[in-house]
């Protein structure tokens, strides 16, 4: 009697080989976006940052509801008010959401007037009610509803107030609108130019290619900020704030396209030699169709990754322009403009009222988030590596 080796075997009709292959096949046959998504999910930081950005952009239309104040509400009694806290317990008892009014106290040691929270009387902070001026939500619904309102007879400056007594938190929230959309519009502009020029150069070659390449070289060697400054200085003074905003985002996009055009061009040069492109051409497809249906899908993903990496550059560009007083103009609000305002208060003031510099926190966070998402995307878009 021979001893049978112990095997874990399935039913007799099962073919192990087929089973293993089918497992692999599922991976091979999976559409690219599934593979990409699977790889993208492996970058935990990238996913987290992506969610953060999605949440941020989803909030944009509803900033009036979220912010306790309107962006330009002045309060001359509370100039440079320090940040207030939100508390639930007063004297060890639960009294609901409340805050403490700020009182100014003379500090004998430094000889300065110091704001101190007056913790004796708690001011209840109303939540989910109506207050303040009316606004138009999405331009459709007239409302006075806010997530959180300043207390009755008091103020609520969670991140302090600026030199005109405007709430820093509310301004950051409202400013997010322009600061975050400017990158998107700028990237769209740069995409349109880069795709068109790079595509034409790569597809047709010859003197067109040479011309476009020279143009790329010229634009690449321009120092961005001085040219941005010069162009924004040319935006007429009497334009309304929306037109200025559009113009600034176009200006930001105008200098960004060379890198993109270059990438598109080299991709085109490589893809043009592929057999399927030649096949499509032989079958009589027009250049437009070949580009759109056969070549584009092959490098679109790379372009998206590179776009997500150039959005932060534009956000920083807007911040820099507005900071220097050449970008967004009041009464619009943007993070760069707030920083410009902060600097106008004087460097000495910044030391005493550091909270006017808070707008730099969202700038850094958003730029970091875009960088991480872009890195993760770039890595994920190469599913076969």
């Amino acid at each position, binding site marked *: 009697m021979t001893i049978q080796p112990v095997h874990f075997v399935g039913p007799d009709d099962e073919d192990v080989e087929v089973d293993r292959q089918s497992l692999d096949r599922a991976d091979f046959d999976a559409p690219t976006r599934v593979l990409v998504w699977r790889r993208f999910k492996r970058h935990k930081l990238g996913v987290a940052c992506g969610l953060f950005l999605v949440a941020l952009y989803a909030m944009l239309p509803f900033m009036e509801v979220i912010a306790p104040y309107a962006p330009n509400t002045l309060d001359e009694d509370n100039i440079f008010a320090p940040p207030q806290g939100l508390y639930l317990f007063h004297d060890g008892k639960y009294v609901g959401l409340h805050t403490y009014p700020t009182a100014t106290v003379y500090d004998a040691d430094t000889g300065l007037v110091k704001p101190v929270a007056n913790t004796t009387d708690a001011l209840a902070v109303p939540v989910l009610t109506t207050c303040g001026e009316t606004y138009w939500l999405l331009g459709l619904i007239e409302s006075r509803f806010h997530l959180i309102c300043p207390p009755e007879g008091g103020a609520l400056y969670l991140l302090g107030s600026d030199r005109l007594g405007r709430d820093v938190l509310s301004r950051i929230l409202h400013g997010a609108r322009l600061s975050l959309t400017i990158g998107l519009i700028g990237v769209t502009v740069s995409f349109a130019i880069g795709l068109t020029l790079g595509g034409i150069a790569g597809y047709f070659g010859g003197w067109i290619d040479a011309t476009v390449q020279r143009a790329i070289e010229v634009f*690449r*060697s*321009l*120092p961005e900020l001085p040219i941005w400054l*010069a162009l924004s*200085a040319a935006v007429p003074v009497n334009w309304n704030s929306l037109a200025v905003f559009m113009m600034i985002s176009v200006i930001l996009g105008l200098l960004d396209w060379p890198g993109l055009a270059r990438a598109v061009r080299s991709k085109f040069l490589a893809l043009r030699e592929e057999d399927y492109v030649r096949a499509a051409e032989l079958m009589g497809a027009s250049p437009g169709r070949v580009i759109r249906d056969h070549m584009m899908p092959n490098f679109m993903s790379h372009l998206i990754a590179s776009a997500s990496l150039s959005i932060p550059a534009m956000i920083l560009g807007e911040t820099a322009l507005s900071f220097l007083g050449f970008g967004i103009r009041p009464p619009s609000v943007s993070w760069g403009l707030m920083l410009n305002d902060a600097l106008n208060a004087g460097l000495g003031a910044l030391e005493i009222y550091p909270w006017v510099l808070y707008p*730099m926190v969202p700038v850094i966070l958003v730029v970091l988030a875009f960088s991480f998402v872009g890195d993760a995307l770039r890595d994920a878009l190469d599913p076969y590596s």
Partner: protein
Amino acid sequence: MTVYLIRRFATMLLTLAVISALVFIIINLPPGNYLSNQIAEMRYSGEASGIAKAEEMVKQYSLDKPIWQQYFIWLGVMPGPDGFTGLLQGDFGWSFELGRPVAEVVGETAWLTVLVNLSSLLFVYVVALPLGTIAAVRANTWIDYAASLIGYIGLATPNFLLALIMLFYGARYFGIPIGGLMGHEYEGAEMSWGKMQSILIHLIVPTIVIGTSAAAAVMRRLRANLMDELNKPYVETARAKGVPPVTRIIRYPLRMALNPFVADIGNLAPQLVSGSVMISVVMSLPTIGPILLQALKSQDIFMAGFILLFVSILTLVGMLISDILLTLLDPRIRLSSARREA
């Protein structure tokens, strides 16, 4: 090699010509200029003598001619009326706002601008080379993570914020002087040992601030390139042969990874120049940054035009240097260009 250099130089001049046209268009985009605004203002207040003087200026600098003629006169290829000879003949024009020749205003600050940019470029390389190498060799250790963290912060923080932060802490904790590029007592003084020292100390903060984000980018790229090289079989062979670790890394992989590193000078130049303009405004450095801002605000067109051209030349020269270095460093580029010419 010589032929390559000549060709490279010729393309640079061509690029410069195109840029000069672009710059001239850009500064003439806003309607009017400093003089026409001045004239309108004086007409409003009824200063007849001022108007006559300003209109004479307009004639002298041929601002009443069609725009393309203005461009050629400004460039210096077409003779201007009344002795305005143009850029190519060394006449950079007149600053209407300051009432001084552009060359005089810019001349004082130009070399400081170059100095600030050069020192930031040096800073980028001095910081990025060792940090990037260490990050690649010790990949996925705390050193790597720390270097990446610094890199990401450098990438995400707008450099003017860095400047503001440095303004506080540099002065408070390290006693580093902030703002300006030299002590007050040296302003306008002759060059001396003391002035030199003062300038060097004042350079520290602007250099760090301007260079950080570029250093971060270069460092990340060097790390990626070096990691690719370190995985190659020849490194393994060297290790098997018992080549000591430091030599093993520096001898070949680092040299390979250095190529894109040098090529980066070209990409960095525009970025650094942009950064220096920004930082000069924030920290009130006596470079051309603040002058440019003021000139743009008041539409002082010759001033703004010349400065824009000057910063463009700075970046072009940076790119030229990087290309020349590349050919010197990499025999493959040198030989392939030689072969093409043969």
